[in-house]
């Protein structure tokens, strides 16, 4: 049997008491269906009873039509709503809640079962409590300190080291070597190995596409490093590979983009 929370039990008992009317309302353990509160839609069986139940005529007509169609209207919801098909059920068997009514003196009632909801889905409406802290002051103070540190660092750096400014641009004078900015030096390095189309278009294209697709390729839900060794290994591999290419381009390429030892021939690079 499913665990039914206290307050739902109480509610269903109250409801039963009301529905029972004259009948002696037995307080037997309710079925999960009722606890779910889904079997509330009741309808009168005969038109004669319509007046007493106070249900508008057009709704009655609609429910009758639905009933005559019977169960061939399959439920497409599936899963939790396995009993959601609208089927005609004899009053006595309709749902336990209807029992007192059937036994009692009142008009015969039919209960229609609309859905069976699993207990879990109505019990976990509340989120688990999360340990939280106020953004002010805790986060804002940290951000402010980070901001000051970055500003201070950049200030000192900018006072000590000036941005390069070489001679005015001259299309007729190609410097040797000509290097791309550092973030594209990896591509320039690839240029020494592959056809320009492969190095300059295909590989970066695949690279960006692969990056975009990362969340859809890696379907492993784990976030613990020990449970995603492959993903980490492959990302680290590319990260190192890329860094090595960039470093190589920065330090080990001289005139003609040929290999040099930076300590012997100097560094041919400017930021």
């Amino acid at each position, binding site marked *: 049997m499913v665990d039914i929370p206290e307050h739902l039990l109480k509610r269903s008992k109250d409801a039963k008491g009301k529905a029972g009317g004259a009948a002696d309302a037995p307080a037997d353990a309710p079925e999960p269906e009722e606890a779910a509160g889904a079997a509330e839609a009741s309808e009168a069986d005969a038109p004669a009873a319509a007046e007493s139940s106070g249900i508008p005529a057009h709704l009655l007509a609609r429910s009758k039509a639905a009933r005559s169609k019977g169960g061939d209207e399959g439920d497409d919801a599936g899963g939790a709503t396995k009993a959601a098909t609208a089927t005609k059920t004899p009053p006595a068997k309709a749902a336990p809640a209807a029992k007192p009514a059937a036994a009692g003196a009142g008009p015969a009632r039919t209960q229609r079962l609309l859905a069976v909801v699993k207990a879990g889905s109505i019990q976990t409406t509340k989120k688990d409590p999360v340990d*939280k802290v106020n953004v002010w002051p805790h986060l804002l103070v940290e951000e402010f300190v980070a901001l000051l540190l970055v500003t201070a660092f950049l200030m000192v750096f900018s006072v000590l080291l000036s941005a390069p400014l070489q001679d005015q641009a001259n299309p007729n004078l190609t410097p040797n070597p000509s290097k791309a900015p550092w973030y594209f030096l990896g591509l320039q390095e690839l240029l020494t190995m592959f056809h320009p189309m492969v190095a300059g278009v295909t590989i970066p294209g695949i690279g960006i596409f692969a990056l975009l697709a990362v969340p859809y390729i890696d379907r492993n839900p784990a976030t613990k490093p020990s449970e995603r060794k492959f993903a980490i290994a492959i990302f680290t591999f590319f990260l190192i590979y890329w860094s090595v290419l960039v470093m190589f381009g920065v330090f080990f390429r001289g005139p003609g983009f040929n290999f040099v030892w930076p300590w012997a021939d100097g560094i041919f690079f400017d930021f």
Partner: protein
Amino acid sequence: MATKTNGNGNGKGKIAESVSNVMTEKVHGGQVWSSIFRPGSVFRKGYSDSPRNRAYTVMNSVLYHLHPVKVKRHAVKVSYTLCLGGVSFFLFILLTVTGIFLMFVYRPTAANAYQDIQALQTQVAFGLLVRNLHRWGAHLMTFTVFLHMARVFYHGAYKPPREFNWVVGVILLVLTLMLAFTGYLLPWDQLALWAVTVGTNMIGFTPVFGDQVRFILLGSNEIGPNTLLRWYTLHVLMFPFILVIFLAIHFWRVRKDGGISGPL
């Protein structure tokens, strides 16, 4: 409060005191002041450190309310995000501010650009410093965005429900690179011209429409005055504009996806 004395017996304290009283009562407590600073502002009269004011401080400030009122405890650990996303964002703001100052001096024409940079460095007060801040800030931002991406990867922070924010992030990465690259041309020195030449030559090898794309980007077949104007416009207007839009989506998604991921 108004009747308190400092007890040192000389009149100076009294004057200072009445000045401070006027400050608190008339200015600090006045209508003008409290219309500027919304409830919860630390500048408001009677600010006290209460849970309510802590919440108000965030909610009632246009800048701070990028944040929720509360975050998970582990989210404020510097060791988790390493502040890399935040630092990238701050650098972007710093680049916007310094960039605007540079625009006061710089003209994007082949005849003026180089001389303007020289003048900036030698004749404009703090011109060299601002240029250095802009240049080093740009390199640093490119780097921190890379690092931010790596930290997000190593935390598996792109996993559901954050897949799309990773995609937005990759777009931000590409935009950051494009901003850095278009800016690289603007000093119009040999370094700029030839670095961009190397970079854009590759575009021409794109199958089918490579030459057309290159022509559109350069404004001619070779890098020249047209390129300068085009890349200037891209650099100061178009790319920042697009970047800001995607930044808004990025931050919004961080919140909608339930705040920072983790703890691991």
